């Protein structure tokens, strides 16, 4: 029982947590980057953190997709797939193209975060 619970932490819980917080993290980071105020030390730290989060927001989804893509054949085995259920459950159709679905999950949120951070008078605000 404990081993089953522990298995969830490798890596389902973390992936799920990242997916849930992905939007907020990306949104806050992009917003801080666009605001660009570095007048105080706290704001400078926030600016650096926003760079890091933005980079991770682009890299981590690609990394997860790459891992799943590389292990796709192995993941046809149920036990091997269990650790990535959060991502793989939606692509359980024996086709690598199904990776587009979780990819779209991240892309949609990344795009939303960028659009929401646009200045109020930007022409593209109506997108």
């Amino acid at each position, binding site marked *: 029982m*404990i081993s089953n619970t522990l298995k969830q932490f490798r890596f389902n819980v973390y992936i799920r947590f990242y997916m849930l917080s992905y*939007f*907020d993290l990306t949104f*806050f980071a992009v917003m801080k980057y666009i605001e660009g105020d570095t007048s105080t030390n706290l704001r400078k730290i926030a600016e650096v953190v926003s760079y890091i989060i933005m980079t991770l927001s682009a890299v981590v989804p690609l990394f997860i997709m790459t891992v799943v893509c590389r292990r796709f054949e192995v993941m046809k085995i149920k036990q091997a797939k269990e650790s990535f259920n959060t991502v793989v459950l939606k692509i359980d159709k024996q086709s690598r193209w199904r990776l587009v679905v979780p990819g779209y999950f991240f892309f949609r949120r990344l795009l939303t975060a960028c*659009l929401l951070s646009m200045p109020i008078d930007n022409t593209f605000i109506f997108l």
Partner: protein
Amino acid sequence: MISFRPSSKWYANTTYSFRLVLQESDGPGVKFSYPMDVHVTGTTYDFYKEENFTDYTFEMGALDRYGNTSITWSNPINYPFLRDNWDAMFDVYIKNVTIREHNQTMPLLSWEHTGVSDDNKTMHFRARFHDPYMLGLLTKKSDRLYIHFKYDLLDFDGHFKRESYDDKTYFEGMYLNCTDEYGCVKPNATLSRVFPTACATDKEKSPPDNKDAQFISTKEREKLYKKKRIDIQFDFENTEMMYMRKFAEKTYWYLCGVVVFQYLMLAMRNIGFLPLWTLIEYMQLCAFIPLYNFRMIPYLYDAFKPFLVSHLVLTDEARLLKEFENDYFNINYDYFGLNIAKLAQALALVTILGGIIIFINIVIFAAWMVTPRDTKVG
């Protein structure tokens, strides 16, 4: 010898004609009459060019979300007089975004005088509108509030009309002259003018200055108004707006209840949390609809708050980084009450949640280490 000593500059370059009569005082009627001309040398003074006038014009201040606005006069004004005679001197109205369709201005619900600045120049007001939730919703088109000085009060020189049939001199009571030395006193009305430039333009367009004109022009005096965009309004004295606000606040708790209820039911039935995750994921995307459409009813934000996951736990007051409580990413976030402190708080809570997950992972790992593998629990 007769000496003439003009006592005022206003006699300059003027010829006075009179007749000098010499008559013997006690004689038999010797009497001579001489026509005389006296010319006072100097350059003619043009009253409207030479005198220092106190000109009164006003500018309008921005209208805030609570309907507060102001007008600032170029010189001190007699506030109690203007306040008491406001309706006789000004029209206040709205031209909304559909003005071209109905070609009709909209009246205000109320127009309240809220005070005057210490220098007696800035008058403060609070406007309330019918259906305030319908105003300020578009970005590229504007609903506008107009403060319009009535066109028929002034003559061509910028003075209040002084005709026997149309006497408006009563409104000269609006003038006030303030100096450090004497304080505020009622000034010389002849040397005070209101919007003289517009009045002078009307004069040029009217007979006799404009020989082609048949009628007196009031065109420029009809444009003595100032206007400001009405941005989104938060009038919680409005019944509908207050109802929707309360409804949104309650919806927050209903939606929180739905999430918690679903979590408990799924946990009890032990069938996995996929429906819950799916619900939350879609809630997250729905949540930013009002923020996407930045003009969409921010007072309903509470109804969408639970959808924002990290906003789910946002308190009305920020608990962290209080110094950023008045700091907003832009005006829309201000409308939504989402200051930097609150957003940072949401981010901090996400981070804490991540820390809790790591902590639980460590605890379970430790439990797994100390639990024998061959038991049911292990």
